[in-house]
C-alpha cells in the first residue's frame, strides 16, 4: 500500500477546523474558558507550531522514553544509591516531589482545557499531547518517590503536600489555581507554556538534570531529562498564541498576561529553586550560582524572546534584577528558621567554605546574611536550640503567599484596604497583580488570615504545625544536624562578625 509523505497528510489530518452552523461560536468556545481576546474565529486557524508530531509518532516516542526511565530505576533499585546521596541533595529532591508531582496533574487539567477550548485545531492537537505529557509527569513523579518510601517516609509528601494546609502548599495552590485550574485557554497558553514552561521550568529542568548527574543521582537525572523533552515540545503553544495576539492589536493584553505570571513565577522560583541551588546542592557539584543561572539562561532567553516578539520587559524589571541579589538568601533563612513547618530537612549550607563561595558569588553576603548565621551558629554551640526556631508566624504576602522579606532598612510591606479588609503585599508587583483583578483574589485567606480568623486551634505554633499536616516525625530538621555550626573555626567567626 503506497504511503504518503507526512508533509502531504499532516496538515489535513491535524487542522480539522470548520465554521459552526447549528450553534454559535460563543457556545462552543465560551469566553470564560476560551477568551478570544476579540480575535475573529477564523483568524485563530492560522495558529501553527513547529513540532508537528503525529499521534503515532507521539506514542512511539513516549513508549521509548518510558522504557528508558524505568530501566534506569530498575537497575538502581538495589544499588543503595539513595543512602549515599548528600543530605542537602536529599532535601532538594524531597522538596521537589512535593512541589511538582501534584501540579503536573493540575497542568494536565490546564492542557486539557486548551485541548478543548483552544481556538484552533492545530493548537487543540498539541494540547492533547500536552495533557498526556502532564499525566505522564504526574505518574512518574509519584512512582519514583513511592519506590523510595522505605528509605525516607517523607517522600509521601509527593502526594500529600497539595492536600494539606502547609504554607508553601497554600502558596503553590494559589499560584497554580491562578495559572491553571482557574484560567482560560488563551491566557494559559501564554502564562503556563510561554512564561513558566519555556521561560523557567524547561531551562531549570535542563540544569537540574545536570546537577543530579554530577551529584550521583542518576535516577533523578534520568527522570527530569525525560520530562524536560516533553516540556520542550508542548511549551511551544505559547509563542504562536502570543504572535496572533500581537499581530491583531492585542500586544498590551499579551504584555499584561506575561507581566503577571513572570512575577508570580519568579517569586515561587526564588523560594524553591534559589535555596536548592545555592544552599542544598553540594558545593563540589555546583556548576553556577542561582543568580548566574538566572542571568545566563532565564534572563537571556526572556530578553531574546521579548526582542523577537516586539514585547517589552516587564515594567518591574529593575526590581526583579535587584531581587536576584538578596531574595532567595532571605527566603532560605526563613525556610531554615521555620524548618518544623517543612516536609524536608533544609540544609543550612553555610560551612566556612560555603560562606566563602556565597560571598564570592554575592559580594556583600557576609555583611547582609553571614551575620545572622553567625548568631545562629553561636546559639547552636551554646546549646540554645530554642533560639534557632521562630516562635511566631512570618507575615506572608496576600498575593504570592510567601514570607514578606525586607530588601533593606525601612522598606515596609505594602498594605491595601479592599472591601473592609487589610491586604498585605510583599512588593509593588504583587500589589499590582491584585489590583488588576481584586475580585479574583480577594476571597483567599493566607495562613496569617486563617490564624487570625481562628481556623487554627490551638492558636499556637504546635497548632499551626498540626494545621499544616505535619506530625512530629514529618517536621523538617537541619539536614546535617548542625554539623556546620561546630566546624566553624573561631578565626572564620571573627572574620564575619
Amino acid at each position, binding site marked *: 500500500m503506497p504511503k504518503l509523505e507526512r508533509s502531504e497528510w499532516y496538515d489535513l489530518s491535524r487542522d480539522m477546523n470548520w465554521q459552526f452552523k447549528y450553534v454559535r461560536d460563543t457556545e462552543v468556545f465560551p469566553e470564560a474558558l476560551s477568551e478570544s481576546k476579540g480575535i475573529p474565529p477564523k483568524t485563530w486557524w492560522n495558529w501553527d507550531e513547529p513540532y508537528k508530531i503525529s499521534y503515532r509518532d507521539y506514542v512511539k516516542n513516549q513508549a521509548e522514553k518510558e522504557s528508558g526511565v524505568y530501566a534506569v530505576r530498575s537497575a538502581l533499585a538495589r544499588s543503595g544509591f539513595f543512602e549515599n546521596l548528600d543530605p542537602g541533595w536529599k532535601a532538594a529532591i524531597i522538596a521537589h516531589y512535593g512541589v511538582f508531582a501534584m501540579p503536573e496533574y493540575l497542568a494536565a487539567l490546564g492542557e486539557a482545557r486548551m485541548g478543548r477550548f483552544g481556538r484552533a485545531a492545530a493548537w487543540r492537537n498539541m494540547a492533547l499531547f500536552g495533557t498526556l505529557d502532564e499525566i505522564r509527569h504526574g505518574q512518574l513523579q509519584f512512582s519514583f518517590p513511592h519506590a523510595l518510601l522505605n528509605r525516607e517516609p517523607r517522600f509521601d509528601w509527593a502526594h500529600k503536600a497539595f492536600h494539606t494546609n502547609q504554607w508553601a502548599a497554600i502558596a503553590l495552590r494559589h499560584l497554580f489555581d491562578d495559572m491553571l485550574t482557574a484560567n482560560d485557554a488563551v491566557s494559559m497558553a501564554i502564562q503556563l507554556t510561554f512564561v513558566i514552561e519555556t521561560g523557567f521550568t524547561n531551562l531549570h529542568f535542563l540544569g537540574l538534570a545536570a546537577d543530579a548527574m554530577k551529584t550521583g543521582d542518576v535516577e533523578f537525572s534520568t527522570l527530569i531529562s525525560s520530562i524536560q523533552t516533553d516540556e520542550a515540545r508542548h511549551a511551544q503553544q505559547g509563542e504562536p498564541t502570543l504572535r496572533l495576539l500581537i499581530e491583531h492589536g492585542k500586544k498590551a493584553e499579551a504584555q499584561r498576561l506575561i507581566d503577571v505570571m513572570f512575577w508570580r513565577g519568579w517569586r515561587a522560583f526564588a523560594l524553591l529553586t534559589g535555596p536548592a541551588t545555592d544552599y542544598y546542592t553540594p558545593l563540589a557539584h555546583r556548576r553556577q550560582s542561582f543568580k548566574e543561572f538566572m542571568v545566563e539562561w532565564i534572563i537571556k532567553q526572556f530578553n531574546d524572546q521579548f526582542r523577537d516578539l516586539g514585547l517589552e520587559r516587564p515594567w518591574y524589571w529593575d526590581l526583579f534584577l535587584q531581587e536576584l541579589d538578596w531574595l532567595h538568601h532571605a527566603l532560605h533563612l526563613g525556610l531554615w528558621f521555620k524548618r518544623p513547618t517543612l516536609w524536608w530537612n533544609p540544609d543550612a549550607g553555610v560551612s566556612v567554605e560555603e560562606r566563602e563561595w556565597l560571598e564570592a558569588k554575592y559580594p556583600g553576603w557576609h555583611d547582609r546574611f553571614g551575620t545572622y548565621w553567625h548568631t545562629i551558629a553561636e546559639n547552636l554551640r551554646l546549646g540554645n536550640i530554642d533560639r534557632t526556631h521562630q*516562635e*511566631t508566624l*512570618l507575615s506572608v504576602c496576600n498575593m504570592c503567599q510567601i514570607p514578606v522579606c525586607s530588601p533593606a532598612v525601612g522598606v515596609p510591606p505594602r498594605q491595601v484596604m479592599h472591601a473592609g479588609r487589610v491586604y*498585605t503585599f510583599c512588593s509593588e508587583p504583587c500589589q499590582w497583580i491584585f489590583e488588576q483583578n481584586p475580585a479574583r483574589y480577594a476571597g483567599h485567606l493566607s495562613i496569617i488570615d486563617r490564624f487570625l480568623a481562628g481556623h487554627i486551634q490551638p492558636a499556637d505554633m504546635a497548632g499551626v504545625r498540626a494545621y499544616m499536616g505535619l506530625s512530629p516525625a514529618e517536621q523538617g530538621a537541619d539536614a546535617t544536624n548542625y554539623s556546620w555550626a561546630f566546624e566553624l573555626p573561631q578565626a572564620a567567626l571573627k572574620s564575619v562578625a
Partner: protein
Amino acid sequence: MAVVPLQAVFRGDFVTLLVLVDDKDTMKVVADKIAYHVINRRLPPQNAPIRVQYNHRALPPDQTVAQAGILPLSFVEVYYDARDRRHA
C-alpha cells in the same frame, strides 16, 4: 483588653513577623515582644533603648497601642535608638 496582631520588623532583620500584642501594652512592652523574636536569634543585643515606629513616627515608650491608634495588622518597625544609649 484586646489582642492586636501586628506586622513587625526589627530594623536590620530580614523578615516581617506576626506579633500579637495587647491594646493596653505600652510601646516599651510592644518593643520587647517584637525583640524577643529577633534579638539573640539573628541580631545581637545592643545597649540602647528599643523604639517603635508607626506611620513614620517614633512613638513615646509609655504610649499604649490603643492610644497610638494602631489598628490590627498594622506595620510597625522597631529599632535600637543609638542616640539614647544612657537610658537602655
